[in-house]
């Protein structure tokens, strides 16, 4: 045990450095602007009531408001009524910093919309990848046809090309057909996963031929075999691939940054966060960190729940 002590010391030190930004991100998302500025309040902050200045400013009473409120405050001068109304506004705009930060995260920018876009984009990418890759992988693994070797070498060659690297010509092509600033632009470059084809082919190679022959005997066509025989056998590999794909595209920032400009309705979560940072003034650290926390949390939670599968999926590319 004492021999292991130094190992634990090193690993704990490493773990502290790894955790530090996560700790800070979550902690800032709980604290009030003052606590962030002064660097106090521990992890949760003191959660004292704070006043949302913008909210108060928005409710600043004008002449009509004062006139409308006059019946509620009989026998008082206009300025007294005004003061009372401001006091009311201040009281209504009080909230805990944690509520302030998270409610601002969702109201200052359409964060829900961004999250929804993220789900739409990652889900469509994954589904199309499967629809395209699975039949090809099956043909390459189990069917003998003229040109198979050529197709497979093409797959191996295309594995060399990272999509991010050819972003510029892809962007030009999309711009030429007028597809920038659409969902299609976010999805199209990722519809073909050469890696997915390669992976599924390797997997299908291990499926016994008898299974396929039996299906043919039953009168199944090749299309039916792909979707009703091969797909079910490939579920574990597909799950791993799904994790690989979803993590990559949920977190992707480079490609959305290129093809989506200005149109907030199409922002994916990282773009939304980036925009938040762009127009953030000093007091908005809390809501911004709340946004960051909201974006990072789904994958982290999923990872913690299904660790083994996630590690398998993310390191898929290591199983070549």
């Amino acid at each position, binding site marked *: 045990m004492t021999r*292991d002590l130094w190992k634990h010391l090193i*690993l704990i030190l*490493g*773990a502290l450095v*790894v*955790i*530090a*930004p*996560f700790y*800070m*991100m979550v902690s800032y998302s709980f604290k009030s602007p003052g606590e962030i500025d*002064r*660097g106090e309040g521990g992890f949760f902050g003191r959660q004292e009531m704070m006043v949302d200045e913008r909210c108060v400013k928005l409710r600043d009473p004008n002449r009509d408001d004062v006139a409308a409120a006059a019946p509620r405050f009989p026998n008082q001068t206009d300025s007294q009524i005004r003061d009372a109304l401001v006091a009311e506004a201040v009281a209504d705009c009080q909230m805990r910093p944690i509520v302030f930060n998270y409610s601002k995260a969702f109201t200052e920018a359409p964060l829900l919309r961004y999250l929804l876009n993220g789900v739409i984009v990652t889900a469509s990418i994954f589904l199309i990848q499967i*629809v*395209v890759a699975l039949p*090809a992988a099956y*043909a*390459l693994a189990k*069917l003998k*046809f003229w*040109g198979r070797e050529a*197709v497979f070498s*093409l797959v191996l060659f295309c594995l*060399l090309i990272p*999509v991010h*690297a*050819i*972003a*510029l*010509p*892809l*962007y*030009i*092509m999309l*711009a030429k057909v007028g597809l920038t600033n659409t969902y299609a632009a976010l999805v199209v*470059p990722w519809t*073909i996963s050469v890696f997915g*084809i390669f992976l599924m082919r390797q997997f299908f190679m291990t499926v016994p031929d008898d299974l396929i022959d039996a299906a043919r005997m039953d009168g199944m*066509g*090749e*299309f039916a075999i792909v979707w009703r025989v091969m797909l079910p056998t490939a579920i574990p590999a597909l799950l791993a691939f799904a994790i690989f794909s979803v993590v990559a595209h949920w*977190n992707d*920032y*480079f490609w959305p*940054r*290129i093809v989506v400009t200005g149109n907030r309705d199409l922002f994916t*979560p*990282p773009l939304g*966060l980036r925009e938040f*940072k762009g127009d953030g003034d000093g007091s908005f*650290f809390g809501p*911004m960190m709340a946004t*960051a926390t909201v974006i990072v949390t789904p*994958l982290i939670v999923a990872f913690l729940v299904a660790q083994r599968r*996630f590690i398998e999926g*993310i*390191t898929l*590319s*290591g199983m*070549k």
Partner: protein
Amino acid sequence: MAVAETHTPVIVSAETAQCRTAWWLTAPALGLMVLILLVPVVIAGILSFTDYSLGNDTFNWVGAKNYERLFSRSTYEKMFIATFTYVVTVVPLSVGLGLGAALLINSLGRIGDLYKTIFFLPVMATLLAMAIAWEFMLHPSIGMVNHTLKMSCGTILEIIPFLKKGCGDRFPLWLGDRDYAIWVICFIGVWQGFGFNMVLYLAGLTGVHRELYHAAEIDGAKSGWERFRLVTWPALGPTTVFVVTISCIRAFQVFDTIEAFWPQGGGPNKSTYVMMFAIFEKGVQQNLIGIGSAITVLFLVFVMFLTLIQRWLVERKVHY
């Protein structure tokens, strides 16, 4: 002839039928591969010899001018320096730390899994969000990093020259300081990537046979270092080749952190002006497609060269 005609058509048609379905199954993948991966590479190659801009109907051939510019202008010299500094720093460190963490965790048994989970967190997290968290950590006045450094002032730790200088004068601005900016980016790159390498190494370690260690011990390898040198390291050869290649390719593609910290211009004195950022800035933002394409082509050459070296190594030697 008549006999042949009655017999062969059945066989031939069965085979051609299979051939035809196989092509139907691969056609979508094949088409997309060509359209999304190969055509853009060709387009980038062609456009790199022109002065094309989006929105112009025509363009001029400018020969190798774009490439000459890449190798003569100081901006691009900075680009190459930044990119290679990043790759040369991040790859060995993230591979080394990944291997170290894997060896330590592997020797600890089940308790080690906790560290594994923690070290893998940055791989899952949205890099852009974490970049923003790091930006707060590194904030010169309210950031956690300089706060922690300040705590060491007045203690024995002050004999370290760096701390002494910081305590006497001020601690670095980190992101605003051209001497530190690129190293901060490298640090975040290592922070984010070493967990991925660790997991690949852990998978590699499960493949090392116990008997090999016994054999080595019988042969006189007493110390842990000897056992590592004689058994573990050679057995991890294929993993290392893969880990180094994928780390290189990922390192070449660094973008998110740099765009998050310095949306304009690539850092103080362009010290973090990496290739992906240059492609984005020149090609997409400034619409200088020619020069952007030239950088894209160089980028592809680097990445393909690396992958080919990897494949060559895998086929040639590293199987033990």
